[in-house]
């Protein structure tokens, strides 16, 4: 399966989805006016990956900002990962947040409580 690589912009994150390594990464800012367009290829890729995932998938989410339009799309990404987890594959989710950024930590906790896969909360200390 071809990896999905998207370079970041001031309003959209850097994406690296690699099926061979079992690594899913979203980093940077996600604040487009309409996020559906941006996230559709990500969700489609995961739908395909779900059919034949690695024994262990490592997910790294490291967002500086995201808007509420993106928040629903990010949940769609997590729902795909939840399905992989439910099919008895190992899914590790690392949620990174910058030092003191309680809002971002809380956002991670919100997702964790909805999708029911334990998150590893990792504070980035500068």
């Amino acid at each position, binding site marked *: 399966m071809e990896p999905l690589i998207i370079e970041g912009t001031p309003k959209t994150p850097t994406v690296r989805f690699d099926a061979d390594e079992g690594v899913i990464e979203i980093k940077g800012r996600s*604040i487009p006016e309409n996020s559906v367009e941006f996230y559709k290829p990500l969700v489609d890729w995961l739908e395909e990956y779900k059919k034949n995932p690695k024994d262990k998938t490592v997910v790294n989410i490291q967002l500086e*900002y995201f808007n*509420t339009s993106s928040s629903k799309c990010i949940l769609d990404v997590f729902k795909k990962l939840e399905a992989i987890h439910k099919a008895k594959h190992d899914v590790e989710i690392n949620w990174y947040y910058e030092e003191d*950024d309680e*809002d971002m930590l809380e956002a991670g906790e*919100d997702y964790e409580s*909805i999708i029911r896969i334990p998150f590893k909360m990792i504070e980035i200390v500068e």
Partner: protein
Amino acid sequence: MNFRIEDYYADRLGGDVLLAYKGSITTDLINNVLDTVESKLQDFHEPSKVKKKVYNVLVESLQNLFHHIDDLPDEYKDQFESRFGILVVSKDKNRYRISTGNFIRNDKIAYLKEKIETINASSKEGLKDMYKHILNHQKLSEKGGGGLGLVDIARKTGNKLQYSFIPFNEEYSFFNLDVFIDEEVKKTVK
């Protein structure tokens, strides 16, 4: 009483103004505003969490504006540009204020007012539940709005949303929203 945009705008220019704009709210405008405010915030001696909150709330406020502006009928075209809105970001004493204003059809007021009142009557915990419920159960609109913007703003600022609907004509009113972000971010009570 006639609503005069100039008076409304002038009223909001108190304190230290980081940015003030009235005109068409477009994607390019949003990008410009975000860049400008972000670089201005860098000159302010604030903890990064306060700057982040201001930026975050600004993103939501602008995008709310972008998604919800109602256009006035053609006869006002020479008076107001299409997608007309107002934005003022200022700092007065110990708080940042983000003011947005836009025309809204009168038949939408009741719904919006109820939504804001519900948000303002909610505790921190209540807002968290409301946010998660909408996040998990409501579909994104075609325009990409999700009904989460105001809830998110209230959650992040910890302050009540201050608003007014100023009658304009039989069909339209001007909706004003003032959002405050305290310099001393309130301690999180879990």
